[in-house]
């Protein structure tokens, strides 16, 4: 073999050794898991995105920033927290409307008319259930903003994991002025369970 061929073989062997070392190094580092004080336990699959309800300022950018139209962000109402008021800040623009007329008024907070009011208990001044129709909700956060400004803070925004396309880089993260969109493990399921606030992971 000519010296040049020998040199080439040597370099290729060296390259292979280096490549194998680099690959296994990265694998050990990443698969070895995070530090002990890490925010999450490393999941076996993938990450998704979720709104941190504590940081959200209800600016309404979620409705337009999502790559998906209509947005994967929807407003929800926590039934365990809702005050079931006769007149709801997240539902009515003008709360001075007499209670018998609320059912027929068209001065509603939601431009999509997604906030639904159904009678639950008692008479006309009894208790009402407020829910948000996901078919019509576009995530504009107007209802959640009103509820959090004046009401019992039961309405908030979530990114629905069944609608989220799971982009590696979430477009809403860039638009969000309050850094409220967080990368979260898709499991355990508790993180997306129901109309609750997300569990604080820290």
């Amino acid at each position, binding site marked *: 073999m000519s010296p040049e061929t020998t040199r080439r073989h040597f370099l290729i062997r060296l390259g292979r050794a280096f490549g194998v070392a680099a*690959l296994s190094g990265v694998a050990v580092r990443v698969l070895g898991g995070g530090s002990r004080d890490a925010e999450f336990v490393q999941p076996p*699959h993938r990450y998704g995105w979720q709104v941190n309800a504590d940081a959200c300022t209800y600016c309404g950018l979620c409705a337009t920033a999502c790559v998906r139209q209509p947005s994967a962000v929807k407003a929800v109402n*926590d039934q365990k927290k809702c005050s*079931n008021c006769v007149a709801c800040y997240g539902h009515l623009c003008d709360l001075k409307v007499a*209670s018998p007329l609320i059912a027929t008024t068209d001065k509603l907070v939601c431009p999509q008319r997604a906030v639904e009011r159904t009678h639950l208990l008692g008479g006309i001044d009894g208790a009402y259930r407020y829910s948000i129709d996901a078919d019509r909700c576009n995530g504009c956060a107007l209802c959640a903003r009103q509820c959090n400004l004046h009401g019992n803070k039961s309405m908030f925004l979530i990114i629905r994991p*069944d609608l989220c396309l799971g982009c590696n880089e979430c477009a809403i993260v860039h638009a969000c002025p309050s850094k409220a969109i967080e990368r979260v493990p898709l499991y355990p*399921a508790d993180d997306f369970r129901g109309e609750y606030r997300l569990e604080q992971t820290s």
Partner: protein
Amino acid sequence: MPETEAPTISSIRWWNFTACLTVLAILAVSGSALAEDFDPGRASGPEIQAYRDHAIPQEYPSPARGWFYADVAVVVGLLLSGVWLVRTHRPARWISAQLGVALLYLGLIRGGCICPVGATANVLLGIARPELVGLATMGLFLVPLIVALASGRVFCGAVCPLGAVQHLLSRSREEVRVSPGLHRVLLALPVLILLATAGEVWFAHGFLPCQLDPYKPLFFQGHAFVQKLTALFTAGYAEPGWILVGGGMAWAILLLALLVGWYIPRVFCRYVCPYSVLLGLLASVGFWRREIDANACIQCERCMKECPVQAIRRSADGKTVVISSYQCVQCGRCADVCNRQAVCGKE
């Protein structure tokens, strides 16, 4: 003297107090009707408390985790079949057909984000913060690299959905060859983009490959459609209206990329893709490399003209024709056009 002044002050306070009380009483009487209007009428009592206690929260299920394992399995399966196609020198159209399957499943059905190109950024992030990388992502990143070390960039030529869009589009006869000088300069771009990817993901938490990917509206649109279809069949939630993914800008970039890709084959793979650097480096020291047998070659240069990524060129001394393993995407077109069966694999 405190003893004499004290009664004066307290008497003034007492008068103030009574005055305030009177004003408040008048306000309360006159404003009671007003205050009632602002009370939203909160519901209370044992019945409503029972309702709240028994309210079952609605669940929003995450995509079934089986999908993620299936993705890794599909990538591994396609890679293995790609290795078989490449190593046994099957016709290039077989490899193209497999790319079609990869485009359909990994691209349109799974949204193109089962994508080792993007996983490059995730794994780079994982070097800094391992807990931020899912294990499936890690697998997707590693498997094509291991295969590249074993038998070249099979991933690019036979599995990658981004490569598939470009490959299936650039089969026209109107290919434009990039001049060799410019080609060599542009080859530095992916390296720079890889460095920029690392920089951005470490210091700004951004994912450069995903920002640069021009094909994502196409993939996401397909993915959203499939998601909706799946929801209809599995009784999940599906929105009633039409779903549009990506803004006008994204679609314009897609059209531009498709137009450029029509004339310059695999333009993204060659001059943008940061993952191609890693694959290329491992492929160039790989255990199996596509080479041209100098004894059989008659230097007709047909393969040079056929190669979509311009990986075949004359050697430095001008006596032989060589394939750059760094650039070769194992599409098999050179072997198809060679009349002398000079293109072969070398251990």
